[in-house]
């Protein structure tokens, strides 16, 4: 089955963040999918993927946690594609997939924990994990997307911020860097492509895959604030009005440390932060409320109004 057909109906793994601070990402992803005629079936009774933390206790527990989600999608729901919009979830499912295919020790621990938990052990290759970017890029594509735009982004200047976990480390993403049409780990462009098709002007942004310090956003907040300030300043210097995000941890980190940079370091920036699904939804004719724009801590409604968008 080609990707265009395979991605029409996928298992959806929102993850913990999308039920909390990333609520607007969940809302806008679902709304955009519906608008584009793509079907999402939420993974039943899912659990946390292990995020950035569980691997520091023991990496094989994280492999098990992620494998349980894939096992439910494959064995209890009959899906062959799992879509995760959160970079952390996406990364961990991909990493579990790699480890289960290549490491005997990971397979043993996953089997032991799965049988004690009482579900079928996930076998590598049962599902393909994709990001929300792959989903829209491959199921719809730029051409069809451009044809469906009702409300162009009118040359809105956007810095596309992909973060760490979407591209690194390279070995867990075998489909990237694999020739024409594939995503690049050094200069990712899927979000740029989709937003350009929706009428945005992507600025030349050097910090696309820089780190926001998300893993230590609370435990080493000053480091995270410095890293985020670099990203915000670089985006502004590149002329961006909006930073588009594709990860709830990055997004919340940018919003939180934009405030913290001002309160604790006196660094003031004005660039707004929006999920790429919020921007796409608005371009497709959804109302700002429908994509949860009012929920963003960084309020970008005036920036859109100034460009007569929406």
């Amino acid at each position, binding site marked *: 089955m080609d990707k265009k057909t395979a991605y029409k109906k996928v298992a959806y793994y929102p993850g913990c963040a999308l039920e909390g601070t990333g609520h607007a990402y969940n809302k806008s992803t679902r709304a955009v999918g519906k608008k584009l005629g793509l079907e999402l079936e939420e993974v039943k009774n899912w659990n946390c993927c292990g*995020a950035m933390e569980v691997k520091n206790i*023991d990496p094989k527990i994280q492999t098990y946690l992620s494998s349980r989600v894939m096992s439910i999608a494959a064995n209890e729901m009959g899906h062959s594609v799992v879509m995760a919009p959160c970079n952390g979830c996406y990364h961990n499912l991909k990493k579990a997939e790699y480890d289960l295919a290549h490491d005997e020790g990971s397979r043993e621990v996953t089997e032991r924990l799965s049988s*004690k938990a009482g579900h079928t052990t996930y076998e590598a290759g049962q599902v393909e994990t994709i990001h929300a970017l792959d989903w829209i890029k491959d199921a719809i594509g730029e051409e069809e997307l451009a044809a469906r735009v009702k409300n162009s982004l009118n040359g809105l200047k956007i810095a596309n911020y992909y973060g760490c976990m979407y591209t690194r480390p390279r070995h867990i993403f075998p489909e990237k860097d694999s020739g024409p049409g594939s995503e690049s780990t050094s200069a990712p462009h899927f979000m740029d492509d989709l937003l350009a098709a929706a009428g945005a002007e992507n600025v030349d942004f050097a910090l696309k895959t820089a780190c926001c310090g998300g893993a230590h956003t609370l435990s080493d907040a000053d480091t995270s604030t410095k890293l985020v300030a670099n990203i915000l300043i670089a985006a502004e210097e590149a002329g961006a009005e909006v930073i588009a995000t594709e990860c709830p941890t990055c997004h919340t980190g940018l919003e939180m440390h934009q405030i913290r940079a001002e309160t604790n370091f006196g660094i003031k920036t004005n660039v707004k932060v929006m999920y790429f699904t919020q921007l796409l939804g608005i371009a497709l004719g959804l109302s700002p409320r429908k994509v949860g724009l009012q*929920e963003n801590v960084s309020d970008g409604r005036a920036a859109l109004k100034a460009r007569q968008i929406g």
Partner: protein
Amino acid sequence: MPIHEKHLIRPENLSTHDNLVIDGVDVSGDWSTFIKARVVTDYNEQIEEEISALPGGEFIHRCWQCGSCTNSCTVNALNSDFNPRYWIYLIRMGFEAELVRDKDLVWQCVSCNKCTYACPRDVFPEGVMKATAHWLELKGHTVKSPSTQFDEEFSSQVFRTGKIEDGRVLLGFFRRSGQSLFQPWLVVMIKKMIRGLPLVWLTKMGWSALFHPRTRGWGPAGAAIQEYAREQEHKHLAAVRGGHPEAMFDPAK
């Protein structure tokens, strides 16, 4: 000759001269700084083996010191004392005393994986940083870092209920690390969130912070994970000679 990576040499091991004459030749200006000769005898050749036995440290032996990790490092760009290549060198040479001087820096690795991406030898330096930080704590060289406290709070919530909830993690971490909730940035952030979030959602978030959302039927999975985690903690402690049991993670806490 200039001394490269001069910041790696401790000031007390440097000798600086304004005017210097050697064998009747005035070398002032060109040769103003020397590294003092010293003899190191307190090697601990076990360090590499101990760190290799902890998760993430398995491939430290592959390193050939090219420095790609440090060159690509996010934290090094903010603080040049954060130097993965140098720490890997110290570990492999057994310079425990030198490594311990940086005991409260190693944990600051943000796991961006730029080093792992750049490493030509698949050392997985990000994992080595985590294993080294873990080793420093197990060995009793330093107390649990804020990062470890966060990892433990987060993981024990996942092990108990299958899921985490942002507010609950934040509260739990601030409690564990003894921080006040009344931080200026947090007050501004919460005010802005209240403005934008629908009332229903805020109620739901408050509700989940009190009544923990959980994965249905999580009991057996949670129990199996906790049992496995305890086994691993004992294994890690046993791998570190003279390890401190109080540095272990208790998933039930």
